[in-house]
Protein backbone atom coordinates (compact mmCIF):
# COMPACT_ATOMS: atom_id res chain seq x y z
CA UNK A 1 0.00 0.00 0.00
CA UNK A 2 2.78 2.39 0.95
CA UNK A 3 4.59 1.44 -2.24
CA UNK A 4 1.46 2.30 -4.29
CA UNK A 5 1.14 5.70 -2.57
CA UNK A 6 4.75 6.56 -3.40
CA UNK A 7 4.08 5.62 -7.03
CA UNK A 8 1.01 7.86 -7.19
CA UNK A 9 2.96 10.66 -5.53
CA UNK A 10 5.82 10.36 -8.02
CA UNK A 11 3.37 10.31 -10.92
CA UNK A 12 1.59 13.48 -9.74
CA UNK A 13 4.94 15.15 -9.07
CA UNK A 14 6.02 14.33 -12.62
CA UNK A 15 2.79 15.84 -14.04
CA UNK A 16 3.33 19.03 -11.99
CA UNK A 17 6.93 19.28 -13.15
CA UNK A 18 5.80 18.85 -16.76
CA UNK A 19 3.23 21.64 -16.32
CA UNK A 20 5.80 24.03 -14.89
CA UNK A 21 8.23 23.23 -17.71
CA UNK A 22 5.67 23.80 -20.46
CA UNK A 23 4.28 27.11 -19.15
CA UNK A 24 7.19 29.42 -20.16
CA UNK A 25 7.05 28.09 -23.71
CA UNK A 26 3.35 29.04 -23.88
CA UNK A 27 4.18 32.57 -22.75
CA UNK A 28 7.03 32.79 -25.22
CA UNK A 29 4.75 31.65 -28.01
CA UNK A 30 2.33 34.49 -27.16
CA UNK A 31 5.13 37.05 -27.28
CA UNK A 32 6.30 35.79 -30.63
CA UNK A 33 2.74 35.92 -31.92
CA UNK A 34 2.55 39.59 -30.90
CA UNK A 35 5.42 40.47 -33.20
CA UNK A 36 3.59 39.09 -36.24
CA UNK A 37 3.03 41.36 -39.23
CA UNK A 38 0.34 43.96 -38.66
CA UNK A 39 -2.04 45.05 -41.39
CA UNK A 40 -1.76 48.78 -40.70
CA UNK A 41 -4.34 49.72 -43.34
CA UNK A 42 -7.03 47.82 -41.41
CA UNK A 43 -6.90 50.42 -38.63
CA UNK A 44 -7.78 53.25 -40.99
CA UNK A 45 -11.30 51.91 -41.51
CA UNK A 46 -13.00 51.83 -38.12
CA UNK A 47 -16.18 52.75 -36.32
CA UNK A 48 -16.88 53.52 -32.69
CA UNK A 49 -18.06 50.52 -30.70
CA UNK A 50 -19.95 52.86 -28.35
CA UNK A 51 -20.25 56.62 -28.61
CA UNK A 52 -17.58 58.88 -29.99
CA UNK A 53 -15.28 60.75 -27.59
CA UNK A 54 -15.75 64.48 -27.53
CA UNK A 55 -12.45 66.22 -28.19
CA UNK A 56 -11.35 69.13 -26.01
CA UNK A 57 -8.67 71.75 -26.39
CA UNK A 58 -5.60 70.66 -24.45
CA UNK A 59 -4.53 73.06 -21.69
CA UNK A 60 -0.99 73.19 -23.03
CA UNK A 61 0.69 73.42 -26.41
CA UNK A 62 3.75 71.45 -27.49
CA UNK A 63 7.16 72.83 -26.65
CA UNK A 64 6.19 74.97 -23.64
CA UNK A 65 8.61 75.25 -20.74
CA UNK A 66 7.74 72.61 -18.13
CA UNK A 67 4.69 73.28 -15.92
CA UNK A 68 5.91 73.53 -12.33
CA UNK A 69 4.10 71.57 -9.62
CA UNK A 70 6.41 72.58 -6.76
CA UNK A 71 9.24 75.12 -6.80
CA UNK A 72 11.66 76.11 -4.05
CA UNK A 73 14.00 78.98 -4.84
CA UNK A 74 16.12 81.84 -3.54
CA UNK A 75 16.26 85.35 -4.97
CA UNK A 76 18.60 88.24 -4.24
CA UNK A 77 18.95 91.80 -5.51
CA UNK A 78 22.35 93.45 -5.64
CA UNK A 79 22.84 96.80 -3.78
CA UNK A 80 20.84 99.79 -5.06
CA UNK A 81 19.97 103.38 -4.12
CA UNK A 82 16.70 104.45 -2.54
CA UNK A 83 14.95 107.70 -1.72
CA UNK A 84 11.88 107.96 0.53
CA UNK A 85 9.65 111.00 0.92
CA UNK A 86 8.03 112.16 4.13
CA UNK A 87 4.90 110.27 5.13
CA UNK A 88 1.45 111.84 4.97
CA UNK A 89 -0.99 109.87 7.07
CA UNK A 90 -4.02 112.12 7.27
CA UNK A 91 -5.88 109.91 4.84
CA UNK A 92 -7.53 111.05 1.66
CA UNK A 93 -9.33 113.98 3.18
CA UNK A 94 -6.11 116.02 3.13
CA UNK A 95 -5.57 118.85 0.73
CA UNK A 96 -4.55 117.57 -2.69
CA UNK A 97 -2.15 120.41 -3.11
CA UNK A 98 -0.03 118.85 -0.42
CA UNK A 99 0.77 115.97 -2.78
CA UNK A 100 3.31 118.18 -4.45
CA UNK A 101 4.88 118.90 -1.10
CA UNK A 102 5.11 115.16 -0.38
CA UNK A 103 6.59 114.49 -3.81
CA UNK A 104 9.29 117.06 -3.23
CA UNK A 105 9.94 116.48 0.45
CA UNK A 106 12.75 113.99 0.55
CA UNK A 107 13.08 112.45 3.99
CA UNK A 108 15.54 109.59 3.60
CA UNK A 109 17.98 108.41 0.98
CA UNK A 110 20.90 106.05 0.84
CA UNK A 111 21.73 102.53 -0.24
CA UNK A 112 20.16 99.14 0.40
CA UNK A 113 22.80 96.42 0.44
CA UNK A 114 20.63 93.34 0.46
CA UNK A 115 17.10 92.49 -0.62
CA UNK A 116 16.18 88.86 -0.99
CA UNK A 117 14.82 85.67 0.45
CA UNK A 118 13.11 82.37 0.00
CA UNK A 119 10.45 81.64 -2.60
CA UNK A 120 8.13 78.66 -2.58
CA UNK A 121 5.38 77.87 -5.03
CA UNK A 122 3.09 74.86 -5.26
CA UNK A 123 0.47 74.22 -7.92
CA UNK A 124 -1.36 70.97 -7.32
CA UNK A 125 -3.99 69.44 -9.62
CA UNK A 126 -7.23 68.60 -7.81
CA UNK A 127 -9.11 67.45 -10.90
CA UNK A 128 -7.21 66.93 -14.11
CA UNK A 129 -9.21 65.50 -16.98
CA UNK A 130 -9.30 66.29 -20.66
CA UNK A 131 -12.66 68.05 -20.15
CA UNK A 132 -11.82 70.02 -16.99
CA UNK A 133 -8.81 71.00 -14.92
CA UNK A 134 -8.92 72.41 -11.40
CA UNK A 135 -5.70 73.31 -9.63
CA UNK A 136 -5.02 74.69 -6.16
CA UNK A 137 -1.82 76.50 -5.38
CA UNK A 138 0.20 78.10 -2.63
CA UNK A 139 2.94 80.70 -2.86
CA UNK A 140 5.30 82.24 -0.32
CA UNK A 141 7.86 84.96 -0.94
CA UNK A 142 10.26 86.76 1.39
CA UNK A 143 11.86 90.16 0.87
CA UNK A 144 14.37 90.77 3.64
CA UNK A 145 16.08 94.20 3.72
CA UNK A 146 19.54 95.21 4.95
CA UNK A 147 20.42 98.88 4.51
CA UNK A 148 24.10 99.55 3.88
CA UNK A 149 24.19 103.34 4.42
CA UNK A 150 25.22 104.88 7.73
CA UNK A 151 22.38 107.43 7.80
CA UNK A 152 20.38 107.30 11.00
CA UNK A 153 16.75 106.38 10.26
CA UNK A 154 14.14 109.10 10.61
CA UNK A 155 11.94 108.38 13.58
CA UNK A 156 8.64 107.04 12.25
CA UNK A 157 10.12 106.76 8.75
CA UNK A 158 10.12 103.79 6.40
CA UNK A 159 13.79 102.83 6.82
CA UNK A 160 13.15 102.22 10.50
CA UNK A 161 10.42 99.76 9.51
CA UNK A 162 12.38 97.87 6.86
CA UNK A 163 16.04 97.72 7.89
CA UNK A 164 16.82 94.25 9.20
CA UNK A 165 13.23 93.11 8.73
CA UNK A 166 11.34 91.00 6.21
CA UNK A 167 8.26 91.61 4.11
CA UNK A 168 6.26 88.47 3.41
CA UNK A 169 3.75 87.44 0.78
CA UNK A 170 1.79 84.26 1.35
CA UNK A 171 -1.15 83.32 -0.76
CA UNK A 172 -3.54 80.69 -1.99
CA UNK A 173 -4.78 80.52 -5.53
CA UNK A 174 -7.05 78.35 -7.60
CA UNK A 175 -7.23 77.89 -11.36
CA UNK A 176 -10.01 76.45 -13.49
CA UNK A 177 -9.48 75.45 -17.10
CA UNK A 178 -12.63 74.57 -19.00
CA UNK A 179 -12.45 73.65 -22.69
CA UNK A 180 -15.78 73.86 -24.51
CA UNK A 181 -14.72 71.99 -27.63
CA UNK A 182 -11.63 71.14 -29.63
CA UNK A 183 -10.43 74.76 -29.89
CA UNK A 184 -12.25 77.07 -27.46
CA UNK A 185 -11.52 77.30 -23.74
CA UNK A 186 -12.03 79.43 -20.64
CA UNK A 187 -9.50 80.11 -17.91
CA UNK A 188 -10.42 81.44 -14.45
CA UNK A 189 -8.03 82.25 -11.65
CA UNK A 190 -8.64 83.64 -8.17
CA UNK A 191 -6.01 84.47 -5.59
CA UNK A 192 -5.91 85.63 -1.97
CA UNK A 193 -2.60 87.04 -0.72
CA UNK A 194 -1.41 88.35 2.61
CA UNK A 195 1.41 90.82 2.08
CA UNK A 196 3.23 92.86 4.67
CA UNK A 197 5.59 92.80 7.63
CA UNK A 198 3.44 90.42 9.65
CA UNK A 199 4.50 87.63 11.90
CA UNK A 200 2.45 84.68 13.09
CA UNK A 201 1.43 86.67 16.19
CA UNK A 202 -0.22 89.58 14.35
CA UNK A 203 -1.42 87.83 11.21
CA UNK A 204 -4.97 88.85 10.32
CA UNK A 205 -7.38 89.67 7.53
CA UNK A 206 -6.17 93.28 7.49
CA UNK A 207 -3.34 91.92 5.31
CA UNK A 208 -5.62 90.04 2.94
CA UNK A 209 -5.90 91.17 -0.69
CA UNK A 210 -7.80 89.50 -3.53
CA UNK A 211 -7.03 89.28 -7.21
CA UNK A 212 -8.68 87.39 -10.06
CA UNK A 213 -8.62 86.89 -13.80
CA UNK A 214 -10.99 85.51 -16.43
CA UNK A 215 -9.97 84.72 -19.99
CA UNK A 216 -11.57 83.14 -23.03
CA UNK A 217 -9.43 81.86 -25.85
CA UNK A 218 -8.65 79.58 -28.73
CA UNK A 219 -6.18 76.81 -29.40
CA UNK A 220 -6.21 76.59 -33.20
CA UNK A 221 -3.52 73.90 -33.30
CA UNK A 222 -0.93 72.13 -31.15
CA UNK A 223 1.55 75.01 -31.40
CA UNK A 224 -0.66 78.02 -30.72
CA UNK A 225 -2.87 79.11 -27.87
CA UNK A 226 -4.26 82.58 -27.19
CA UNK A 227 -6.83 84.15 -24.91
CA UNK A 228 -8.06 87.58 -23.85
CA UNK A 229 -9.79 88.70 -20.69
CA UNK A 230 -9.84 90.97 -17.68
CA UNK A 231 -8.05 90.85 -14.36
CA UNK A 232 -7.96 92.52 -10.99
CA UNK A 233 -4.33 92.58 -10.01
CA UNK A 234 -1.84 94.01 -7.53
CA UNK A 235 1.12 93.43 -9.85
CA UNK A 236 1.79 97.14 -10.16
CA UNK A 237 1.45 97.56 -6.39
CA UNK A 238 -1.95 99.21 -6.12
CA UNK A 239 -5.12 97.35 -7.15
CA UNK A 240 -5.93 97.65 -10.83
CA UNK A 241 -8.40 96.33 -13.36
CA UNK A 242 -6.51 95.62 -16.55
CA UNK A 243 -7.13 93.69 -19.76
CA UNK A 244 -5.00 90.55 -20.04
CA UNK A 245 -3.83 88.57 -23.04
CA UNK A 246 -2.40 85.07 -23.13
CA UNK A 247 -0.25 84.08 -26.09
CA UNK A 248 1.72 80.83 -26.30
CA UNK A 249 3.36 79.82 -29.53
CA UNK A 250 5.90 77.21 -30.65
CA UNK A 251 7.61 77.28 -34.03
CA UNK A 252 7.17 74.46 -36.53
CA UNK A 253 10.63 73.06 -35.83
CA UNK A 254 9.89 73.45 -32.07
CA UNK A 255 13.19 75.22 -31.47
CA UNK A 256 11.72 78.54 -30.37
CA UNK A 257 8.49 80.08 -29.17
CA UNK A 258 6.72 82.79 -27.20
CA UNK A 259 5.22 82.43 -23.72
CA UNK A 260 3.26 85.51 -22.72
CA UNK A 261 0.56 86.53 -20.29
CA UNK A 262 0.47 90.28 -20.76
CA UNK A 263 0.95 92.52 -18.92
CA UNK A 264 2.34 90.13 -16.27
CA UNK A 265 5.07 88.48 -18.32
CA UNK A 266 6.39 87.78 -21.82
CA UNK A 267 9.27 85.54 -22.80
CA UNK A 268 11.00 84.38 -25.93
CA UNK A 269 11.82 80.67 -25.56
CA UNK A 270 14.67 78.84 -27.23
CA UNK A 271 14.87 75.06 -26.77
CA UNK A 272 18.48 73.90 -26.90
CA UNK A 273 17.17 70.35 -26.68
CA UNK A 274 14.49 68.38 -24.81
CA UNK A 275 16.08 69.02 -21.42
CA UNK A 276 17.68 72.47 -21.80
CA UNK A 277 15.97 75.74 -22.61
CA UNK A 278 16.51 79.48 -22.48
CA UNK A 279 13.91 82.17 -21.79
CA UNK A 280 14.46 85.89 -22.35
CA UNK A 281 11.92 88.55 -21.47
CA UNK A 282 10.31 90.29 -18.54
CA UNK A 283 7.97 89.65 -15.63
CA UNK A 284 5.97 92.19 -13.67
CA UNK A 285 5.87 91.38 -9.97
CA UNK A 286 4.34 93.22 -7.09
CA UNK A 287 1.95 93.46 -4.23
CA UNK A 288 0.51 95.79 -1.65
CA UNK A 289 2.54 95.41 1.57
CA UNK A 290 0.92 96.53 4.81
CA UNK A 291 3.35 98.00 7.34
CA UNK A 292 1.88 97.39 10.80
CA UNK A 293 3.50 100.15 12.86
CA UNK A 294 2.58 102.87 10.36
CA UNK A 295 -0.98 101.63 9.95
CA UNK A 296 -2.92 102.65 13.07
CA UNK A 297 -2.40 106.24 14.11
CA UNK A 298 -5.90 106.40 15.62
CA UNK A 299 -6.83 103.83 18.27
CA UNK A 300 -9.88 101.82 17.27
CA UNK A 301 -9.42 102.34 13.54
CA UNK A 302 -8.13 99.58 11.27
CA UNK A 303 -6.31 101.81 8.85
CA UNK A 304 -3.60 100.52 6.60
CA UNK A 305 -0.31 101.97 5.44
CA UNK A 306 0.64 100.04 2.31
CA UNK A 307 3.73 100.04 0.15
CA UNK A 308 2.53 99.65 -3.44
CA UNK A 309 5.44 97.62 -4.71
CA UNK A 310 5.58 96.94 -8.43
CA UNK A 311 8.77 95.93 -10.21
CA UNK A 312 9.72 94.92 -13.71
CA UNK A 313 12.22 92.10 -13.94
CA UNK A 314 13.98 91.98 -17.28
CA UNK A 315 15.80 88.67 -17.31
CA UNK A 316 17.46 85.76 -18.98
CA UNK A 317 16.52 82.35 -17.62
CA UNK A 318 18.15 78.98 -18.14
CA UNK A 319 16.14 75.85 -17.29
CA UNK A 320 17.63 72.39 -17.28
CA UNK A 321 16.53 68.92 -16.30
CA UNK A 322 18.29 67.82 -13.13
CA UNK A 323 17.03 64.27 -12.94
CA UNK A 324 13.74 62.73 -14.03
CA UNK A 325 10.96 65.21 -13.38
CA UNK A 326 13.17 67.56 -11.33
CA UNK A 327 14.48 70.65 -13.10
CA UNK A 328 16.59 73.54 -11.92
CA UNK A 329 16.49 77.11 -13.12
CA UNK A 330 18.81 80.12 -12.97
CA UNK A 331 17.51 83.64 -13.63
CA UNK A 332 19.70 86.71 -13.95
CA UNK A 333 18.63 90.18 -14.92
CA UNK A 334 17.73 93.66 -13.82
CA UNK A 335 15.06 94.69 -11.33
CA UNK A 336 13.53 97.99 -12.44
CA UNK A 337 11.32 99.93 -10.03
CA UNK A 338 7.81 100.67 -11.31
CA UNK A 339 6.30 101.70 -7.99
CA UNK A 340 7.41 101.82 -4.38
CA UNK A 341 4.98 104.55 -3.35
CA UNK A 342 2.69 104.14 -0.38
CA UNK A 343 -1.01 104.67 0.27
CA UNK A 344 -2.67 105.32 3.58
CA UNK A 345 -6.04 103.55 3.51
CA UNK A 346 -8.23 105.43 5.96
CA UNK A 347 -10.09 102.84 8.02
CA UNK A 348 -9.03 100.25 5.44
CA UNK A 349 -10.96 101.81 2.55
CA UNK A 350 -9.21 100.86 -0.67
CA UNK A 351 -8.58 103.43 -3.34
CA UNK A 352 -8.68 102.80 -7.07
CA UNK A 353 -6.71 104.87 -9.54
CA UNK A 354 -6.39 102.48 -12.52
CA UNK A 355 -3.60 104.55 -14.03
CA UNK A 356 -5.49 107.76 -13.20
CA UNK A 357 -8.62 106.77 -15.15
CA UNK A 358 -10.84 106.03 -12.15
CA UNK A 359 -9.26 108.41 -9.67
CA UNK A 360 -6.33 110.61 -8.77
CA UNK A 361 -6.16 110.10 -5.02
CA UNK A 362 -2.91 111.44 -3.60
CA UNK A 363 -0.24 109.09 -2.35
CA UNK A 364 0.83 108.98 1.25
CA UNK A 365 4.44 108.62 0.26
CA UNK A 366 6.42 108.91 -2.99
CA UNK A 367 9.51 106.74 -3.16
CA UNK A 368 11.95 105.57 -5.75
CA UNK A 369 14.43 102.72 -5.98
CA UNK A 370 17.41 102.58 -8.28
CA UNK A 371 17.70 99.65 -10.70
CA UNK A 372 19.39 96.54 -9.31
CA UNK A 373 20.87 93.43 -10.89
CA UNK A 374 19.30 90.32 -9.41
CA UNK A 375 19.45 86.53 -9.61
CA UNK A 376 17.13 83.68 -8.73
CA UNK A 377 18.00 80.02 -8.44
CA UNK A 378 15.36 77.34 -7.97
CA UNK A 379 14.55 73.64 -8.15
CA UNK A 380 11.18 72.46 -9.40
CA UNK A 381 9.17 69.27 -9.64
CA UNK A 382 7.69 69.60 -13.09
CA UNK A 383 5.34 68.15 -15.64
CA UNK A 384 7.24 68.53 -18.95
Amino acid at each position, binding site marked *: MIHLNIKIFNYLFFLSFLFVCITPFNVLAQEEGEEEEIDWAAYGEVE*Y*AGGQTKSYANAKIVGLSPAKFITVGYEQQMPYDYSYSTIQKDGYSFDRERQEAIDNNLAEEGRIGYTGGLRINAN*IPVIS*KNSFIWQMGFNYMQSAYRFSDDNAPVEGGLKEQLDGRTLHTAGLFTTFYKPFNETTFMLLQAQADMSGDYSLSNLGDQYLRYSAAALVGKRPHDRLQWAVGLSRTYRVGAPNYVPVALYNYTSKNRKWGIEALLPARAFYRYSIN*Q*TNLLLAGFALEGGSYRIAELSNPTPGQVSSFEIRRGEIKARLEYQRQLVGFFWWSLQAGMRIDYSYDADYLDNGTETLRVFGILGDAPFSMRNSLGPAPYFNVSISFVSP
Partner: protein
Amino acid sequence: MKKLFIFLLTIAALYISEPIQAQDAKDGDALIGVWEPSHGKARIKIDKIADKYYGRIVWLKEPKDPQTGEPKLDKNNPDESMHSAPLRGYRMLKDFEYQGDGVWVEGTIYDPENGNTYSSEITLKDENTLDIRGYIGMKTFGRSDVWKRLKLK
Protein backbone atom coordinates in the same frame (compact mmCIF):
# COMPACT_ATOMS: atom_id res chain seq x y z
CA MET B 1 0.53 9.16 3.66
CA LYS B 2 0.53 12.54 5.31
CA LYS B 3 2.69 13.95 2.47
CA LEU B 4 0.29 12.56 -0.10
CA PHE B 5 -2.66 14.13 1.72
CA ILE B 6 -0.99 17.58 1.79
CA PHE B 7 -0.06 17.31 -1.86
CA LEU B 8 -3.60 16.34 -2.91
CA LEU B 9 -5.02 19.14 -0.77
CA THR B 10 -2.73 21.63 -2.52
CA ILE B 11 -3.75 20.35 -5.94
CA ALA B 12 -7.44 20.57 -4.92
CA ALA B 13 -6.95 24.15 -3.74
CA LEU B 14 -5.30 25.03 -7.04
CA TYR B 15 -8.18 23.49 -8.98
CA ILE B 16 -10.75 25.38 -6.92
CA SER B 17 -8.94 28.71 -7.34
CA GLU B 18 -8.34 28.24 -11.04
CA PRO B 19 -11.87 29.24 -12.15
CA ILE B 20 -11.52 32.46 -10.11
CA GLN B 21 -8.19 33.24 -11.75
CA ALA B 22 -9.63 32.37 -15.13
CA GLN B 23 -12.53 34.74 -14.52
CA ASP B 24 -10.07 37.49 -13.50
CA ALA B 25 -8.07 36.90 -16.65
CA LYS B 26 -11.25 37.05 -18.70
CA ASP B 27 -12.26 40.35 -17.06
CA GLY B 28 -8.74 41.67 -17.57
CA ASP B 29 -8.94 40.86 -21.26
CA ALA B 30 -11.71 43.46 -21.60
CA LEU B 31 -8.82 45.86 -22.20
CA ILE B 32 -7.81 44.06 -25.37
CA GLY B 33 -8.86 45.89 -28.52
CA VAL B 34 -8.33 49.04 -30.52
CA TRP B 35 -8.81 52.37 -28.72
CA GLU B 36 -8.81 56.05 -29.65
CA PRO B 37 -7.67 58.83 -27.25
CA SER B 38 -9.89 61.90 -26.97
CA HIS B 39 -7.66 63.98 -29.27
CA GLY B 40 -8.39 61.51 -32.10
CA LYS B 41 -4.87 61.77 -33.51
CA ALA B 42 -3.90 58.15 -32.95
CA ARG B 43 -5.32 54.67 -32.50
CA ILE B 44 -3.80 52.21 -30.07
CA LYS B 45 -4.13 48.45 -30.17
CA ILE B 46 -3.92 46.82 -26.77
CA ASP B 47 -2.83 43.19 -26.53
CA LYS B 48 -1.97 40.78 -23.79
CA ILE B 49 1.53 39.34 -23.62
CA ALA B 50 2.02 36.78 -20.88
CA ASP B 51 -0.05 38.25 -18.02
CA LYS B 52 0.48 41.90 -18.89
CA TYR B 53 -1.14 44.31 -21.29
CA TYR B 54 0.66 46.42 -23.89
CA GLY B 55 -0.56 48.98 -26.40
CA ARG B 56 1.04 50.03 -29.65
CA ILE B 57 0.22 52.86 -32.02
CA VAL B 58 -1.41 51.34 -35.10
CA TRP B 59 -2.73 54.45 -36.82
CA LEU B 60 -1.82 58.14 -36.92
CA LYS B 61 -4.06 60.91 -38.22
CA GLU B 62 -0.94 62.62 -39.57
CA PRO B 63 1.36 59.71 -40.36
CA LYS B 64 3.96 61.88 -42.08
CA ASP B 65 6.25 64.47 -40.54
CA PRO B 66 5.31 67.82 -42.14
CA GLN B 67 8.98 68.86 -41.98
CA THR B 68 10.36 65.89 -43.88
CA GLY B 69 7.37 64.34 -45.64
CA GLU B 70 8.57 60.99 -44.29
CA PRO B 71 6.74 58.76 -41.77
CA LYS B 72 6.83 60.28 -38.28
CA LEU B 73 9.71 59.10 -36.12
CA ASP B 74 10.10 58.98 -32.36
CA LYS B 75 12.41 62.00 -32.44
CA ASN B 76 11.44 63.30 -28.98
CA ASN B 77 12.56 60.13 -27.22
CA PRO B 78 15.26 60.84 -24.61
CA ASP B 79 17.01 57.70 -25.89
CA GLU B 80 18.70 58.96 -29.04
CA SER B 81 18.91 55.45 -30.49
CA MET B 82 15.10 55.57 -30.79
CA HIS B 83 15.05 58.74 -32.89
CA SER B 84 14.93 56.73 -36.10
CA ALA B 85 12.17 54.40 -34.86
CA PRO B 86 8.80 54.95 -36.57
CA LEU B 87 6.00 56.15 -34.29
CA ARG B 88 3.51 53.84 -35.95
CA GLY B 89 4.05 50.54 -34.27
CA TYR B 90 5.60 52.11 -31.17
CA ARG B 91 4.58 50.39 -27.93
CA MET B 92 3.40 53.37 -25.90
CA LEU B 93 1.54 51.43 -23.18
CA LYS B 94 3.56 48.90 -21.25
CA ASP B 95 3.34 46.42 -18.39
CA PHE B 96 -0.26 46.90 -17.24
CA GLU B 97 -1.46 44.27 -14.78
CA TYR B 98 -5.10 43.57 -14.07
CA GLN B 99 -5.91 44.43 -10.47
CA GLY B 100 -9.60 43.53 -10.64
CA ASP B 101 -12.80 45.61 -10.66
CA GLY B 102 -11.98 46.96 -14.12
CA VAL B 103 -8.68 48.54 -13.08
CA TRP B 104 -5.23 47.93 -14.64
CA VAL B 105 -2.21 49.17 -12.71
CA GLU B 106 1.60 49.25 -12.61
CA GLY B 107 1.80 50.32 -16.26
CA THR B 108 3.50 53.17 -18.08
CA ILE B 109 2.34 55.46 -20.85
CA TYR B 110 4.72 57.19 -23.27
CA ASP B 111 3.90 60.62 -24.67
CA PRO B 112 5.57 60.93 -28.10
CA GLU B 113 4.85 64.69 -28.09
CA ASN B 114 7.46 65.32 -25.39
CA GLY B 115 9.29 62.02 -25.05
CA ASN B 116 8.26 61.47 -21.44
CA THR B 117 7.13 58.24 -19.88
CA TYR B 118 4.58 58.48 -17.08
CA SER B 119 3.26 55.97 -14.55
CA SER B 120 -0.24 55.00 -15.55
CA GLU B 121 -3.47 53.42 -14.39
CA ILE B 122 -6.41 52.41 -16.58
CA THR B 123 -10.04 52.16 -15.46
CA LEU B 124 -12.78 50.61 -17.56
CA LYS B 125 -15.74 53.01 -17.27
CA ASP B 126 -17.95 50.86 -19.47
CA GLU B 127 -17.14 48.16 -21.99
CA ASN B 128 -16.31 50.75 -24.66
CA THR B 129 -14.78 53.54 -22.57
CA LEU B 130 -11.46 53.79 -20.74
CA ASP B 131 -10.29 56.37 -18.27
CA ILE B 132 -6.52 56.41 -18.61
CA ARG B 133 -4.41 58.43 -16.16
CA GLY B 134 -0.76 59.30 -16.58
CA TYR B 135 1.04 60.59 -13.50
CA ILE B 136 4.40 61.42 -11.98
CA GLY B 137 5.13 59.70 -8.69
CA MET B 138 1.75 60.25 -7.05
CA LYS B 139 -1.56 60.01 -8.87
CA THR B 140 -2.23 63.62 -7.81
CA PHE B 141 0.44 64.86 -10.21
CA GLY B 142 -1.22 63.65 -13.37
CA ARG B 143 -3.89 63.96 -15.99
CA SER B 144 -6.69 61.70 -17.19
CA ASP B 145 -7.96 61.11 -20.68
CA VAL B 146 -10.97 59.25 -22.06
CA TRP B 147 -10.36 56.59 -24.71
CA LYS B 148 -13.10 55.02 -26.83
CA ARG B 149 -13.17 51.48 -28.25
CA LEU B 150 -13.08 51.09 -32.01
CA LYS B 151 -14.33 48.27 -34.22
CA LEU B 152 -12.58 47.42 -37.45
CA LYS B 153 -14.95 47.63 -40.40
